[in-house]
């Protein structure tokens, strides 16, 4: 009795194991020889990317369209919910020896893989391609994916930071819409006019403006003031956040937060994310890249549009671009590149552009109705194309991802922490705020000394200098 039980148990186990392993294992089937009379088993190409459900849906459509035309290739999508997990998953997959054949990644993050020499450079394949030519792409995006001179990945989009604004809310509150060439002052006044406590409970019900307090969001403001983030975008060795132009931008951003109080407080920001606040009609303006479009289109009855970032001494915005990268370890490089050609070519780029996710990297598609469709929001889609003229980018060196990760923690604390004796900033900008004399010390000590603006530059510099120093010396062949 016991023995038969055991036997049955073992059998059940083995069966369950077989099913499970079949389900979890990737690409375990050996390439089957083509049976006579039937087509060979399709080549499998895995594609890993991150995005919310609305974005991922767009990629699913792209894949079905590709598979319809290429029955011999099957694309397996590996969608990841969060940017951070996407990165962790990629690093573990590379170190585990099972990287996806293709993945989409931002230019600020691809270099750590390029530096480890695990990417298959796509430049040579592009040169041989009959479908795509390098000159068809926006050079600003292509240039961002060069590493040590070689084109590693092919850009899928050329997005930039813009102002999403809620048209219905602007109309209801009688606030004039953003003008094309607006200044910091116009921007600030608009945000102030939108910030309302409508039921008088002491808490703002509508906020004029919101953005994530991160280095990449601060960058365009610093550039607009004539400053810089780093000394050399191609070989960053030092942060430049303590120069006067940068400080002017930081003062402006900080005054928005704690003098004019047009942005959600820390508490409010942590309770509800900016996108949800915007979708619910309780936020006038939101800074983001193109990737918000599919999500906002999916919100019923939301009347919104986009406007360019305001200018100060200069006009500037920051490049947000993702590219298809291929793993050197891929066993299906040709099939994978065919997918890249399809996805970036006219048909694929139009499909994704219609879905709203991208500002196509292919010029002819970006200028086509697929992107500029007047029947789809945002009505002012051309803002994205006009912004390309004043686009600048952040460094794309291998250590940059870590620099940003470190810096963003500090930016957030800096943005939300008011000095113990209240802010020294006032409604009119003044350089009276003392520049920091010494490096070092905790944020709190710096704040006690009244260095609420400089605190950012000092802390960030201190935190990331070691990381920048650890980067290999460039210029060596």
């Amino acid at each position: 009795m016991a023995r038969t039980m055991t036997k049955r148990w073992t059998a059940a186990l083995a069966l369950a194991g077989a099913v499970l392993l079949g389900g979890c294992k990737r690409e375990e089937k050996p390439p089957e020889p083509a049976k006579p009379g039937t087509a060979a088993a399709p080549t499998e190409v895995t594609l890993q990317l991150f995005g919310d459900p609305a974005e991922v849906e767009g990629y699913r459509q792209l894949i079905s369209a590709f598979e319809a035309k290429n029955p011999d290739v099957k694309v397996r999508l590996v969608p990841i919910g969060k940017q951070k997990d996407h990165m962790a998953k990629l690093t573990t997959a590379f170190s585990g020896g099972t990287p996806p054949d293709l993945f989409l990644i931002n230019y600020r993050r691809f270099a750590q893989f390029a530096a480890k020499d695990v990417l298959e450079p796509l430049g040579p394949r592009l040169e041989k391609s009959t479908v795509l030519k390098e000159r068809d792409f926006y050079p600003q995006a292509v240039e961002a994916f060069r590493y040590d001179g070689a084109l590693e990945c092919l850009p899928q989009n050329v997005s930039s930071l813009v102002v999403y604004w809620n048209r219905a809310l602007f109309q209801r509150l009688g606030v004039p819409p953003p003008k094309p060439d607006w200044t910091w002052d116009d921007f600030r006044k608009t945000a102030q006019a939108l910030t309302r406590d409508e039921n008088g409970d002491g808490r703002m019900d509508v906020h004029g403006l919101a953005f994530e307090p991160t280095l990449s969001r601060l960058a365009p403001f610093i550039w607009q003031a004539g400053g810089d983030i780093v000394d050399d975008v191609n070989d960053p060795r030092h942060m430049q956040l303590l120069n006067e132009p940068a400080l002017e931008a930081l003062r402006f951003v900080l005054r928005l937060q704690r003098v004019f109080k047009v942005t959600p407080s820390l508490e409010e920001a942590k309770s509800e994310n900016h996108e949800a606040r915007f979708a619910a009609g309780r936020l006038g303006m939101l800074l983001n890249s193109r990737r918000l479009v599919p999500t906002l289109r999916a919100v019923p009855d939301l009347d919104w549009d986009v406007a360019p970032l305001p200018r100060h001494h200069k006009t500037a915005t920051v490049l947000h671009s993702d590219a298809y990268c291929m793993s050197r370890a891929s066993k299906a490089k040709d099939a994978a590149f065919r997918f890249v050609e399809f996805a970036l070519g006219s048909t694929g780029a139009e499909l994704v552009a219609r879905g709203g996710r991208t500002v196509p990297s292919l010029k002819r598609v970006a200028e086509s109705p697929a992107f500029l469709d007047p029947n789809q929001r945002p009505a002012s889609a051309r803002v994205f194309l006009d912004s390309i003229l004043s686009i600048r980018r952040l460094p794309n060196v291998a250590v940059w991802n870590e620099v940003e990760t470190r810096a963003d923690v500090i930016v957030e604390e800096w943005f939300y922490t008011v000095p113990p004796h209240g802010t020294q900033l006032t409604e009119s900008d003044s350089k009276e705020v003392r520049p920091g004399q010494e490096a070092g010390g905790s944020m709190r000590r710096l704040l006690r000394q009244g260095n609420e603006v400089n605190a950012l530059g000092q802390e960030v510099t201190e935190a990331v200098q070691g990381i920048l120093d650890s980067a290999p010396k460039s210029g060596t062949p």
Partner: protein
Amino acid sequence: MKPGAPRGREAMVWLAAPFLVAAALLVGLPALLALGLAFTEYDALSAPRFVGVDHFLRLWDDPLFWTALGNSLLFAAMAVPLRLAVALGLALLLHRGGRLARSAVFLPTVVPDIAYALLWLWLLNPLYGPLALALKAVGVADTGWLLTPWGARGALVALTVFQLGEVFVVLLAARRELPEELYELCELEGGGALTVFSKVTLPLMAPTLALLAARDVVVSLQTTFVPALVITQGGPRYATTFLPLYIYQNGFEYLRLGYASAMTWVMFLVTAAMVAAQLWVLRGWRASKEA
């Protein structure tokens, strides 16, 4: 595996073979590898390169490492006594009768980590979470403390206190083991509840408590990972960056496996020291009792 009366018992050791082999492969080998890798630069993509004690020197200068180590120790110092005290209290309260209540106490423990973390993320939402709303209803308007470093640390301690099922059940069993006669005797002599607790319950349960404390210190290094990853993401300002999270970030996000291995060994040594200290205290305490 020859059966035989006296040697038969010893032959039973073969039953432990799968366990020992698996343990050697899954824990022993990795631990030794970690010791080796700690002296190399290794990114899992190219071959390891020997760097001597560089990583340990770098650890010495890495403020985030010290923050993470401090956070882990602080967490253990706050969570372990609290968990034990609450579990002991509940075990004494519920050791007779009340299976329903016991089930209720155990229930949060069976909730999977990730669901539990998400649940608390919702509970602790500073404006719309049930906790904030309940506090507002009783007149506490300011719920911003949840976003302070100590608020976040406190919240993480609180959520692990709810998951004390295993400790609770062991203490329950230990209490059941205590001879009822002793309690009756103590009652006859007119000892109050406090006397009974300090003269009978505590001394008799101390060894169990000490072992549980040692185990809980080790466990606390694991239980913090998922909540720190999901709820606080190590923040605000690294206040909840615990050693496992920092090791994960270095190893799996930046592929510094050698550096992360060095940290792993420091973590292991610190744990071992804490456990040894506890057992040593227990032994001293026992010796003094017997003397």
